[in-house]
């Protein structure tokens, strides 16, 4: 394991002087909050890549349909929604064909929900590594989410197909789509960091996650438009960061005008707060992972 990069510059240059006596690393009990160790994480980017690669390989080994699952999951959900909410409940959909309307929301939603459960479970699932070898622990939840990004891209292709089918063209708003993808990533990482760290101590998290995602799905405008809410409540609704993501997707791809700046700004602020606090909490709990897991 290489660790020089994680240390302040003067220490990393220890080899230069005649007194070669500065340690490259000091191991001691840490107190209070730790730094995030981002340079070290960057140093281990290849490991991150291998974790993602492993997860993908293993996930689709011995499956008959392979990566087609990434497409089937949102399509099947979309069909159910279209029948029950679109047809039977006559849910409004901001003038967009209902299947497209719900699918555009399901794409980032499933990325979030799958990433959340994978990320929350990432430490416990890799406990055999935590107790046997050192690497930046943040690599585990992050790689769990990145693994979901591949499924996300596949389902995004499905979305493109659906848009072509319904004859919805692209606009220059597409340029901002990556920003909303990033927002989805930040949101799921924030929650996953919290849950992963808590899961090490309290396995209750495992039971909580399915319930949490289900609850959260109904609190997010996937089957219904957020335009059902009057202002200012619609903006306040952005306190759920997935609202910003979903409405952002519809805004960028389908031309729906329900994602004005304030709502997305609020969502972004909440998501970033979750991620930053989650990362620090994770780092703080990290020192006991190997002893407790």
């Amino acid at each position, binding site marked *: *394991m*290489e*660790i*020089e990069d994680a240390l302040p510059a003067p220490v990393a240059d*220890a080899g230069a002087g005649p007194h*070669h*006596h*500065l*340690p*490259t*690393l*000091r*191991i*001691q*009990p*840490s107190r209070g909050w730790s730094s995030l160790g981002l340079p070290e994480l960057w140093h281990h980017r*290849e*490991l991150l*890549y*291998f974790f993602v*690669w*492993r997860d993908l*390989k*293993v996930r689709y*080994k*011995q499956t008959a349909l392979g990566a087609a699952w990434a497409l089937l999951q949102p399509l099947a959900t979309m069909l159910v929604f279209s029948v029950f909410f679109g047809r039977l409940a006559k849910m409004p959909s901001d003038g967009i064909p209902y299947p497209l309307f719900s699918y555009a929301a399901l794409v980032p939603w499933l990325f979030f929900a799958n990433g959340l459960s994978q990320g929350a479970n990432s430490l416990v699932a890799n406990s055999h*590594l*935590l*107790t*046997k*070898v*050192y*690497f930046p622990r943040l690599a585990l939840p992050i790689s769990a989410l990145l693994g979901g990004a591949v499924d996300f891209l596949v389902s995004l292709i499905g979305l493109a197909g659906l848009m072509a089918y319904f004859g919805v063209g692209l606009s220059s708003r597409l340029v901002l789509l990556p920003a909303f993808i990033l927002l989805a990533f930040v949101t799921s990482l924030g929650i996953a960091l919290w849950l992963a760290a808590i899961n090490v*101590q*309290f*396995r*209750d998290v495992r039971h909580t996650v399915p319930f949490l995602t289900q609850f959260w799905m109904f609190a997010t405008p996937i089957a219904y438009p957020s335009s059902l809410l009057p202002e200012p409540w619609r903006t306040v609704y952005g306190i759920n960061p997935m609202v910003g993501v979903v409405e952002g997707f519809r805004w960028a791809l389908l031309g729906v005008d329900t994602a004005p700046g304030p709502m997305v700004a609020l969502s972004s602020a909440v998501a970033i707060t979750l991620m930053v606090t989650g990362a620090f909490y994770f780092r703080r709990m990290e*020192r006991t992972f*190997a*002893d*407790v897991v």
Partner: protein
Amino acid sequence: MSEIAIRAEGLAKQYHIGALQNARSGTFRESLVDLCTAPVRHARRVLRRESFRTPKDEILWALKDASFDIRRGEVVGLIGRNGAGKSTLLRILSRITEPSSGFADIYGRIGSLLEVGTGFHPELTGRENIYLSGAILGMRKAEIQQKFDEIVDFAQIDRFLDTPVKHYSSGMYVRLAFAVAAHLEPEILLIDEVLAVGDARFQKKCLNKMEDVAHGGRTVVFVSHNMAAVSRICGRAILLDDGRVANEGSAHEVVSAYLMGDEGTTAFREWPHVDSAPGADICRLRAVRIRSREGGVSEAVDIRQPVGVEIEYDVLKSGHQLLPHFYLWNEEGIQILGSNDLDPKWRRRPRPAGRYISTGWIPGNFLNEGTILVDVAVLAIDPAIVQIYERSIVGFQVVGSLDGDTARGDWAGAMTGAVRPIFEWTTQHSAKVATTA
């Protein structure tokens, strides 16, 4: 003085056993209930003038005060009985867990091998696992690519390179795992007893590879119970006892002092309190003694005399069949034998609670000269649950004789081998000398 690679100052590590167990099995609800009832419990304890340290929050010092220097290029063996803190020390130095106090300075890139096959995934092929495990152990992708052929060659698995490792035999698995690990090249390498696996031939190959590594100028810290390997590979050894450095110096000196019983081994051990005695819920070890035929406890035994391994234990729960047994090891770390209690009185019979003493007698003229270490164990049968398993818990010396009535006969030189029984020899003689010429 050459440069320092690792400097440890007062390293200590405590575990909250109670807290640990609590967290392991604990749920959020229990923890919340605990939190709410804590003030009441504490108040009650104060009223009763009890200690705050409940059995639930017992503290275990896995490492108490370890200070030492290891210089660059040194190969250091870390020895000591089980529970002395070796593995904890290694886990701290490899940054898996943090010390509770003290510090260690590491000068150089550090890598660790605490198990064989770290990061292996059973569903992935051998080829894929080489990359995965290599990356997890700290190798760069380019480095793995460069060494790939060498690794495959070392492991001798080229035919199965694209087979998932779940279909490997355990020997193949171990070979591949070690091959990846052996090609790791940090400046400081920490190794935990990984050589205790695989067949003898492969173990030898691993030891040779380790020696290469050691002579390559890298710093190696090597935890092992294999005293022969430690003496052979390591220049220096550090003996840990009860979480402290009990002895350090040249590997030969430390190993022999340890085996001679200065620090580690005596001919008897006793546990006065049943609560702190080793064992599990059905039975607890109370004493182990090396007995001579005359009945005395004996550190040194004449090679011609029988010697008894006496295991004294309490059975706390009635109704279980028990199998007391022991293993003998010589000072080279070679297992000589294992012996099970065959006493017909208790064999296949559930035992009532109480105190038992089981003694196994090793005949005279059987063991070779030298130090013998004894592992003592008691197994509950059906279901088989290990109740007691204490490694190297006692030891004794087998002392030879030149009187001519032992297996050495009239030979006065070295007698090698793990055992030295007297065999019956026969000789056939014919007066007719073959004179063909």
